[in-house]
């Protein structure tokens, strides 16, 4: 087991480096540089050269790459071209905000997905099961930005129950601490719902399938035959086994959530990584784009690693050698 974990880490670290390298070259080989936005023909070529020099863009690509990667692993992401301040300062809060959003969405989607999936498998072909199957199909097939806009239209613009976007209200600083907490809660409800609903739907479908497969197995029949109550069979024997693959889902959901956060953040004006990336893309601000992409990639890789290790820990039947 220990050697399996070590080996898994040994595979992940080179992959992370490869991913960082790929990110760097995709972005740097694309046409255009931060001076492109000064399209004024009177823009002095000498100033342009000076700017490129200041950003270190005049050096050969491999030198730039080496400098970037050595700084990156030390947590120094360079200086933002657009805002002339360290990238760390630009994205520090954004990464945290995205992680709060993604973690809550992950939690909510796994919980609801697992519970609804189990219930609908136990009552297969019932009205509840049909309703769940159909609604999960719809939520799974819905563009999240559209769902977000519709929810804003209904709950914020028409009913005025929830705020339309942002993380806190304008008068946040003047609220009591309980009021501040509540303010944050009402702001996060819609984004979490929109970000989590698609993965909740796919978790539900997955869970339902896994539970149905387990229910047909012999040990369930044995448990019933020896007189264990139906409720206990389902809760203890079946659920415990069906819930194992959810650990894998946890790993699979992470890239989904990180990608989904981009659109959710734009729709709800959530000051997170996705929004920072989009803004940086339109400003051709390489260091920020590279940093956010690399962080997103690293998050996904570490998430997968944790999921794999957790799976090895929770499922003693799996042998790794």
């Amino acid at each position: 087991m220990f050697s399996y974990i070590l080996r898994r880490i040994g595979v992940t670290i080179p992959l992370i480096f490869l991913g960082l390298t790929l990110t760097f070259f995709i972005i740097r080989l694309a046409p255009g540089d931060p001076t492109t936005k000064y399209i004024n023909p009177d823009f002095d070529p000498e100033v342009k050269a000076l700017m490129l020099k200041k950003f270190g863009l005049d050096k050969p690509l491999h030198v730039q790459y080496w400098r970037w990667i050595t700084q990156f692993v030390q947590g120094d992401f360079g200086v933002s071209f657009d805002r002339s301040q360290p990238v760390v300062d630009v994205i520090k809060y954004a990464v945290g905000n995205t992680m709060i959003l993604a973690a809550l969405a992950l939690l909510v989607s796994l919980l609801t997905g697992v519970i609804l999936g189990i219930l609908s498998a136990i009552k297969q072909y019932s009205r509840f099961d049909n309703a769940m199957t159909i609604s999960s199909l719809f939520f799974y097939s819905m563009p999240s930005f559209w769902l977000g806009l519709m929810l804003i239209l209904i709950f914020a613009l028409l009913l005025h129950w929830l705020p339309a976007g942002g993380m806190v209200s304008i008068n946040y600083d003047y609220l009591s601490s309980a009021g501040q907490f509540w303010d944050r809660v009402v702001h996060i409800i819609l984004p979490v719902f929109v970000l989590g609903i698609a993965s909740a739907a796919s978790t539900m479908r997955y869970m339902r399938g896994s539970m149905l497969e387990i229910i047909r197995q012999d040990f369930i029949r044995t448990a019933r035959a020896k007189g264990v109550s139906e409720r206990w069979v389902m809760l203890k024997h079946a659920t415990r086994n069906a819930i194992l693959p959810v650990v894998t889902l946890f790993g699979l959901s992470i890239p989904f959530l990180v990608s989904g956060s981009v659109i959710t953040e734009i729709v709800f004006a959530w000051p997170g990584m996705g929004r920072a990336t989009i803004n940086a893309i339109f400003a051709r601000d390489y260091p920020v784009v590279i940093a956010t992409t690399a962080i997103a990639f690293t998050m996904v890789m570490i998430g997968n690693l944790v999921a794999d290790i957790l799976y090895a820990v929770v499922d003693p039947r799996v042998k790794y050698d």
Partner: protein
Amino acid sequence: MTDMPQEHKHLLPREIDDSPIKGWENWIPGLGLYKRGLTGRGKILLAMFIIPLLMFILLSGKTFQVFTGNGSFSHWIGSGYLFLLFIGSFLLNIRFLRNLVEQDSEEKGVSEWEIGWRRFQQNRRATIGITILVILYSIAILAPIISPHDPISQKNVLQVRFMAPSFDSGYLLGTDGFGRDLLSRIIYGSRISLFIGFISVILSVSIGSLIGVTAGYFGGWIDGALMRLVDLMLGFPRFFLLLIVIAFVGPSIFWIIAVLGLTGWMGIARLVRGQVLSLKEQEFILASRALGVHTFKILFKHLIPNTMAPIIVYSTLLIGNVILLEAGLSFLGLGVQPPTPSWGNIINLGRYNLLDAWWISTFPGFAIVITVVTFNIVGDALRDAFDPRLRD
């Protein structure tokens, strides 16, 4: 035979009237077949006959516009499609009737594909799904003929902008801030979504099967390297990758298709590799190798065709996903650029007038949901029909 369980009835030959062809009903495509008990084919041919006929009569101005010399290329395609359907309905009618009468009594075996196809046809959700898909693609092809207004031209903007959906004004789904008819824009937008979804999935499938079959068949370090590449690509949050590439190469339809295709092949590669790993141990591959068949031929003539069924299932589900991604990119302004309509960029435009002009963002969303749900339903039904593991 009588005690055969209901679910295996599809394996039996159906009772069909194959008396000689006589009577007027055989001249109307589908009607003769329908009366003889071939209801499925009958309905399809009847639709192929009646719908173009109705459009020739009701929309004669637009359908025949191409002959008066002022039709665009897509207009030609639309009219051509209608004529093909119309003529095709007669030709197919003759062929099916002839097959019926000249049926050979020779017993034929039923292939895996045929069993799957029959199961698929018996699934009601699947037939409805396929019908909706055919309708959607027909709408996309016929866009210049059936859309009531021009999707791009702005008439007298100040008078017709932000008109609410109404039947009387002639703008069924209302107009946007530039006075353009929303229904026409959604119809034209369907061409972008359906076309991009289809082409980029074909690209993904080609790359994925090539990599999967190579990795699975050769094994060893080739397998190891290719599968690490798959892991690497799967680790990238796909949307970030799409964003950075599109942002830096510029949003054009060509690049959107290319990038969507190049970032979507990993699932297919894994799927094909898994299939090939089990297939290559089977006797027919061993026999081919013993006979000295070229490796290239083994890969493309024996291995890939045998993985087609799961590939088709998977790629149907993939198309829905790609349509969502494309809509997302267009929504962010990094996809299809206005004034060319796409469902994503119409929704983006409506976002700034969400309260006073709710219809602009709402209706394209319904179009996306209907399309993606349909692809997912058809994909699920195909899986039920063609996945032998689920078949008892």
